[in-house]
């Protein structure tokens, strides 16, 4: 497995790819009854968490189930907006953005790797990787070249025309990583990227994510100590608050 020797980039802008200040997220549990005047109870999933991730940095988010890992990850990826606090993604405050504008911002600045890969089973590895470029209006030839070069980078140059069903779990996750990188995002968010993989495949996926961080900031949430070991630093959450920074 790769060992992190890279230090966070001190290049040009030095603006963090993502910066959250006092991030708080409350959820309403159920709804108030039709005949009841009482307010539905709210649950605080995240409580005043501040953090920043720079290019070239791999940041791990650890914590037990229900500690707020996924909530923080969704906020950092621009999938959700905080109840309180501010979040800037590549220098853009996401709070005033509409859902459509946030989707556009994600398309341009965030790559996401899911635990369960979420590839379209009818499409080849190449077509799956190229899919976000269709949304960006990139031409067919460029999409094809870009997807093939990324599949080569993740070691799947022999598998470009294979469909997800013809690939192993590790190979599917590598396709998902290539898809996350295809738009050249500033930030790669990975949610339990090794959760569905055996240790050997997981190791290879982690190596890839570490390599990616030469250009991008990477944040990964995991229970897996092997995954957290490759990170430059780890933020541990407990009950929605930062319990420890390593």
């Amino acid at each position, binding site marked *: 497995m790769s060992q992190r020797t890279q230090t966070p980039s001190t290049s040009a802008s030095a603006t963090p790819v993502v910066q959250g200040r006092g991030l708080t997220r409350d959820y309403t549990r159920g709804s108030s009854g039709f005949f009841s005047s009482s307010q539905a109870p709210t649950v605080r999933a995240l409580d005043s968490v501040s953090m920043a991730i720079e290019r070239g940095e791999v940041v791990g988010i650890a914590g037990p189930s229900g500690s707020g890992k996924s909530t923080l990850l969704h906020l950092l990826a621009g*999938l959700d907006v905080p109840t309180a606090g501010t979040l800037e993604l590549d220098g853009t405050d996401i709070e005033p953005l509409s859902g459509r504008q946030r989707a556009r911002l994600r398309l341009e600045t965030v790559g*996401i790797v*899911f635990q369960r890969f*979420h*590839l379209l089973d*009818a*499409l080849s590895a190449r077509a799956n990787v190229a899919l*976000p470029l*269709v*949304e960006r209006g990139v031409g067919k030839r460029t999409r094809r070249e870009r997807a093939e070069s990324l599949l080569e980078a993740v070691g799947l140059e022999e598998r470009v025309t294979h469909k997800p069903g013809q690939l192993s779990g590790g190979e599917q996750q590598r396709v998902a990583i290539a898809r996350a990188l295809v738009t050249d995002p500033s930030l790669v968010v990975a949610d339990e990227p090794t959760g569905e993989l055996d240790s050997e495949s997981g190791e290879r996926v982690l190596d890839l994510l570490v390599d990616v961080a030469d250009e991008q900031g990477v944040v990964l949430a995991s229970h897996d100590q092997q995954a957290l070991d490759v990170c430059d630093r780890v933020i541990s959450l407990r009950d929605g608050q930062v319990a420890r920074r390593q």
Partner: protein
Amino acid sequence: MVGIAIAQLRHERLRTALAILGVAMAVLSIVMLTSVGIGVVETGQQKFDQSGRDLWVTGGPLELRPGTVGGFENTLIDSHTVAAEIAQRDDVATAVPMAFQTVYVGKNTTEFETLIGAGAPAQGPSVSISEGRGFQTRDRHYAEGTYDGPMSHEVVIDQRTARLLNVSVNDTLYIGGTLATASRNEFTVVGISPTYSRFVGAPTVTLHLSELQEVTGTTASDRGTFISIRLQDGANATAVQSDLQQAYPAYTVRTNQEQLRATLEDKVVVIASGASLVLLAVVAGILLTMNLQLSFVYQRRQTFAALQALGLSQTSLSALLLLKTLLIGGVGGALGVGLAIPGTMAVNEIVVAVTGFENVVSLSQRILIGGFVIALCVSVVSAAAASLYLTRASTLETLQS
């Protein structure tokens, strides 16, 4: 996007094939049933036009009377008298009473078939004779209502009756409203004509009206089905219709168009059934493609949520769904339209063989285009339902489920 849609459809070959087949069947049903409807109206109109008549006097719909001779009762009473009165008018050229009644017909006195007996003049320019001749005498048996004039004992039959009974011109037939009457009444086949058979769509024997009334026992009330009226050249059909209606308020006087409409109104249950089938075909087509789309979206809801998380817009995903259903609708529609052409020809062949009516299924370019457009509309509705499902699903909740 087109490539992705095609890849998805190819990936689910069986579902895609079933959906295409469903749409094709829906389009086929719509095209065929609409064509039948239009064909029936056109054929009916043609028959009325070919009859060379301008007005029709009826006493009301035929009533089923299982206990009576013939099984049903004609409702126009004193048909000869009323026809004679109408014929007196200067603006009327001819007024001819006619009746249709079921009769027993046999080539001997032991075996009989139940056929339609037409009491009508099988002569004149509006009756086509393919073999033999038409009636050479007028209806003399009526004899001013005494029914004691000489009977001609002549009958004109259609080709199917000839085949059914294996008889030809100059052969003898036994005809009557009951088996006993039939075995006593001998008629000679003088000609073969398709005219009245086409009118009713069944094998028919045509007698002089009074002779039909005689053998079916309806002379007392002189019952007929209708009186057909041909006007003098230049006469105003609407004015004559109005005059006659005032003169005979118990009867209904209709033009060709009105008579056809009334005939179709009598078949309102059949028409409603046809319309219901068209509606059901459309609904079935929508449900089939919608089911395909919704199950596709539901099974891949997390993948779609992931794609939305990656930044793919709702518009792009909806466009993908729309393209998929349009491909299904397009191919299914084309297949349905393609099948409708030989289907129409086959049904027309069967109808001609069974009833003698030609072109009952009238296929037109407009109906074919309409069927295809409905297939595309079905696609759009299905895609809209699937898109709505996607829109209402929360990306985050779906990803976490």
